[in-house]
């Protein structure tokens, strides 16, 4: 799936990812390929992503995530 992690300053990540773990405000959750459409608010925490090249981590201080048609956008 296509994943974009955007902050007001810069784009932290943009590319293909296999899985992304997000710090949702009701607990951590993971988004895999072809996840149902979802909008969730995020807490301060770590975004973990799994790509073909390995795992990456980003710290965010809250935000919103949108999943739609195999495209994930994280606004941090």
């Amino acid at each position, binding site marked *: 799936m296509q994943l974009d992690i*955007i*902050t*007001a*300053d*810069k*784009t932290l990540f943009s590319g293909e990812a296999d899985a992304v773990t997000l710090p*949702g*405000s*009701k607990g951590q*959750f993971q988004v895999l390929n072809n996840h*149902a*459409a*979802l*909008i*969730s*608010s995020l807490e301060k925490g770590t975004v973990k992503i799994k790509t073909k090249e390995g795992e990456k981590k980003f710290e965010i201080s*809250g*935000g*919103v995530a*949108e999943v*739609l048609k195999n495209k994930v*956008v994280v*606004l941090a």
Partner: protein
Amino acid sequence: MANLKEVRIRITSVGSTQQITKAMKLVSATKLRRAQNAITQMRPYAQKLNGLLANLADSIDVDSLKVYFDKREVKNVLIVPITSDRGLCGSFNANVIKLAGRVIAEKYQGKNISILPIGKKGSEFFGKTKHTVINDSRDAFLTLNAETGFSIGERILAEFKAGKYDAVEIVYNQFKNAATQILTNDQFLPIDKSTFGGAGDAKNDYIFEPSKGEILEDLIPRILKTHVYRCLLDSLASEHGARMISMDKATDNAGELIKALKLEYNRARQAAITTEISEIVGGAAALSSN
């Protein structure tokens, strides 16, 4: 007749001024490009936020958000004039200060005015007026990033929510292009609901986690804070644009001045030579007649 040496000194001095203004213009051009990049960087973020909002707009009547929309009786007003830290940028700062003054005089006559200046120039000016000036955000431009922008927004939102102010107005230069700034006064709070009514992408069947209302509670302040940050970025880019233009003009003017001075210098030199020749000729004639 102008003294040769005097004119020569003036030419050198105008020349070095011209060099300075030319260098400042180049520096501003570079800084302008960087400021413009920052604006382009944050554009997708703002767009996406607004796109999300369009999907949630139908539940915007959440109780906890009413405070941002409800118009209260206006007693205390916060004005946020965004100016620059440095001068030499034409009427950039004067315009903001003038407009802020007009807003206070016309829209909020007789109200209790507080001012939160951002940028040194505005802070210096409003410090001399009789209004209450809150000075702790004036140096925001020294370390401008999303965090500083958001924390200023956060503070304004919190104080508005607590009822310290009944209206918040931002006065700043909106960036259009390098040569054009649009002087703007934005009623920041309370929000006009119609500005959020924008048509979004077609309704999708989203799962809302935890709930529409709670997401909105996060989203609306975030959008407002992004707006504050955007105003700061706009003002910064406008400042460099304005300085670039005014330094360009100054360089041109210095060039003209040098041209006029050179003409004067050459004329004086010519006159001196002519006098000298006629003196020699006169001297020689006096000798030979003897």
